[in-house]
């Protein structure tokens, strides 16, 4: 079984198996052909395979006549923020985000600094399949230049968005774990801007992942113990591209990544009320928080591309997913871990509450996430079959099968990154969520 996933805004796979220099070059050529020239920014996380992908992409882009500005190791949100001021025609982020070290990926970013939307992604994919790439002759060949990632400008912009004065006055102490990823070494600059004390862990850009680079409680053990031992006000765990974040409360409780969006919403909607965009698989907590501010919640398919496209296109105020990715339209339509950390700190500073108190104020739901192996050839038909389980319920098929329940919901969908079917059940009642998930898992297992 070869693991290769082609999504609307990029391609991910296992390095040395499906991710080969040639595949990377073909995709980068397709992207460069679609852009038709101009300058393309390149950045990567710290995975040891990163330089291979980055060199392959640089050569391919140059061959299609695109100039390349290579920022080396650079968090994806910072790279995205650089697109507009650089007047670039696009960017490629080399990072598999939350996936393990054996993975790597290309994410394509358009001239607005957002992930390609589905129409743009399809155009690139058509070019990839057609294999008729633009070939620049000698005089039109793109140059490849390198630049330092330069987070200073980014942190200045972020500090200007946040209520930096109130955050500084609060004098927080925080723990940050960038998982030796793209944000390694940058938390210091973040904390300096916001007047926070810092305890950093896994803060070397080695690409050595001590735990999976996915921000969720099971990977937050180190952060939690440092929060307790160091007496910190909050702890944060970043994905390898710094796009997503999960938090740890001051009492050392590891918060589900589902809390990141509602925590941010509690502050941001107070400042800028407006529609919230999220996917169909995200906890109902966000709906309760949004209701407090009278903000509508718009649902999209799962994936940053869909969320940010809707955020930008439908004039949303805030977007995000239950995976810990949050975007504020006024800052940039891109999932941004630094932004999420900053707004959670702002929520604490402005309310004068501890993080655990902010969490307490959010209505509790119980969420159960399961995944079942399924051969890729059958994934979508099996997902569709699960409708049979819910003959009398309200079902939406925007992305897989989502069923609304009185105190919750259940969502069955094909994973975008693995040959798995994901089953997510949420309910105010723990037992109901568990039973709902188990029923679906049993059904799916029998089909597979």
């Amino acid at each position, binding site marked *: 079984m070869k693991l290769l996933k082609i999504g609307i805004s990029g391609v991910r796979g*296992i*390095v*040395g*198996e499906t991710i*080969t*220099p*040639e595949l*990377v*070059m*073909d995709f980068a*050529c397709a992207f460069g052909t679609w852009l038709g020239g101009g300058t393309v920014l390149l950045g990567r996380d710290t*995975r*040891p*395979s990163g*330089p*291979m*992908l980055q*060199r*392959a992409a*640089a*050569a*391919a882009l*140059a*061959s299609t006549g695109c100039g390349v500005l290579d920022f080396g190791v650079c968090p994806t949100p910072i790279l995205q923020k650089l697109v507009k001021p650089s007047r670039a025609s696009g960017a490629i982020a080399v990072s598999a985000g939350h996936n*393990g*070290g*054996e*993975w790597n990926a290309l994410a394509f970013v358009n001239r607005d600094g957002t992930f390609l939307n589905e129409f743009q992604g399809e155009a690139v994919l058509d070019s990839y399949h057609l294999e008729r*790439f633009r*070939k*620049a*002759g*000698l005089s*039109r*060949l*793109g*140059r*490849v230049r390198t630049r330092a990632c330069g987070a200073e400008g980014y942190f200045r912009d972020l500090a200007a968005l946040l209520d930096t004065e109130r955050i500084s006055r609060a004098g927080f102490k925080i723990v940050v774990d960038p998982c030796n990823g793209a944000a390694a070494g940058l938390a210091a600059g973040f904390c300096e801007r916001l007047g926070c004390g810092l305890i950093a862990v896994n803060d070397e850009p080695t690409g050595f992942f001590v735990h999976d680079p996915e921000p969720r409680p099971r990977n937050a053990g180190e952060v939690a113990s440092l929060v307790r031992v160091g007496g910190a006000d909050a702890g944060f765990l970043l994905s390898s591209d710094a796009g997503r974040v999960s938090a740890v409360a001051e009492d050392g409780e590891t918060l589900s990544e589902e809390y990141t969006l509602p925590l941010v919403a509690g502050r941001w909607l107070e400042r800028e009320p407006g529609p919230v965009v999220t996917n169909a698989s995200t906890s109902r907590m966000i709906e309760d928080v949004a209701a407090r501010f009278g903000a509508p919640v718009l649902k999209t398919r799962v994936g940053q591309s869909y969320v940010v496209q809707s955020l930008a296109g439908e004039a949303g105020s805030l977007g995000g997913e239950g995976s810990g990715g949050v975007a504020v339209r006024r800052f940039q339509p891109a999932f941004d871990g630094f932004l999420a950390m900053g707004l959670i700190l702002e929520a604490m500073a402005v309310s004068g509450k501890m993080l655990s108190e902010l969490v307490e104020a959010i209505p509790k739901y119980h969420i159960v996430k399961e995944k079942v192996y399924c051969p890729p050839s059958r994934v979508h038909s099996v997902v569709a079959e699960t409708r049979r389980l819910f003959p009398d319920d309200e079902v939406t098929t925007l992305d897989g099968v989502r069923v609304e329940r009185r105190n919750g919901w259940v969502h069955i969908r094909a994973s975008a990154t693995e040959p798995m079917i994901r089953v997510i059940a949420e309910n105010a009642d723990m037992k109901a969520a568990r039973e709902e998930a188990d029923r679906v898992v049993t059904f799916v297992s029998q089909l597979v």
Partner: protein
Amino acid sequence: MKGKLSLKVGISGVRGIIGDSLTPQLAGRFAAAFATYTGAGKIVVGRDARPSGEMLVNAVYAGLLAAGCGPVDIGICPIPSALLLTREMGARGGIVVTASHNPREWNGLKFLSARGLYLNPSEYEEFLDIYHQGDFSFVGATGHRTVTTEPEPARRHLARLLEALDADLVGAKAIKVAADCSNGAGAVLMPGFLEALGCRSTLINAEAGGAFARQSEPTPENLGQLCRSVRRAGAEVGFAQDADADRLAVVDESGRALGEDLTLALAVKYVLGKTPGPVVVNLSASQAIDDLARAAGVPVYRTKIGETNVVEEMLARRAVIGGEGNGGVIWPKVHPCRDSFAAAGLVLQFMAESGKPVSALRREIPFYVMVRDRIPGTQEDALRLLGSLRRAHGRETISTLDGLKMRFGDAWAHVRPSNTEPIIRIQVEAKTRRNAGVVLARLKREIAALP
């Protein structure tokens, strides 16, 4: 037709046209195949001054990294320096992005073994098999190395040159030199090299990576600018390098280009005078080499055309000097490869030791005239033609090692298919220009009359 001929995969590597056949995908595949062939380790990566080198080098890095090799970036670097460095730093091999004297829109890859030599024909065959099989040894998440940079890649080469030459002897003469680096890779080392030998130098076209100032082939018709520089600066000698600095042409103190076959003759004469030993040259090199070797009482071995063939034979024969008539001098005391710096050093040392001007040294070389011509024809045409000529000239045949070499009195003629273009090359050497012309004309008439 153009599309068909724009990619050449042969014994000297891969060559193609940018924007057409030579894509990053192709370069990446070849690099991955090479890394699979050498096994994981350091691979030296250099390039000539062509602007498309940057794109291709990135593609090569990607292929090497994917297969677990650690590329060592030596940037724009003379080919002999790259070869020597590959051996001395214990690399698994090397890749040089260059198309030597091909036009600007061309570029290519050349592959070096751990010995610091171009892959020989059997090594090349093994490597190409891996390429065609397409089963490359890609590494997983933990097998990746990074690209490192060698800041002074020509340093070791300069050190070896200065060990092999007598810098004090040359330096004492403070020779006035004009040098034309063709804005190629030679510009990286030429100023430092001449300074180390105490020369007073005038450099032209000495910006590595600058626009091609002239046709980089160092033949007399391309050396007008250097000849004028020699006269204007009152230089005692002029040197012209090709773009990757493996070949050298010499201009005398009156500003006259000697012809690139004289470079090898001067080097052979000087080296045999100091350390007599076997000489190896290709079939097309001047018979002046035979005369010089006979005078020194040493044997001459002739090989097929192609640097690899000459080098392999030199190593087998323990030759003290060798090379090609195109200005490619191979002096194993520095490194067994064509080296314009070794050639320039030998000429300078010859001048310093003899106290004679270049024109006088040239007069001491037995005089021959070489004329070259070409007729259109594919390899297949060439085979038919050579068959007919062999039947007709059994008695005149000297060698059938590479095409056909024949003797006509004091002249010889060599007919062979080109390795790179659909043409048949004809080369004639004789004592006088007139006789050379007569032999060439007769041969062409004979060829034209063939069915």
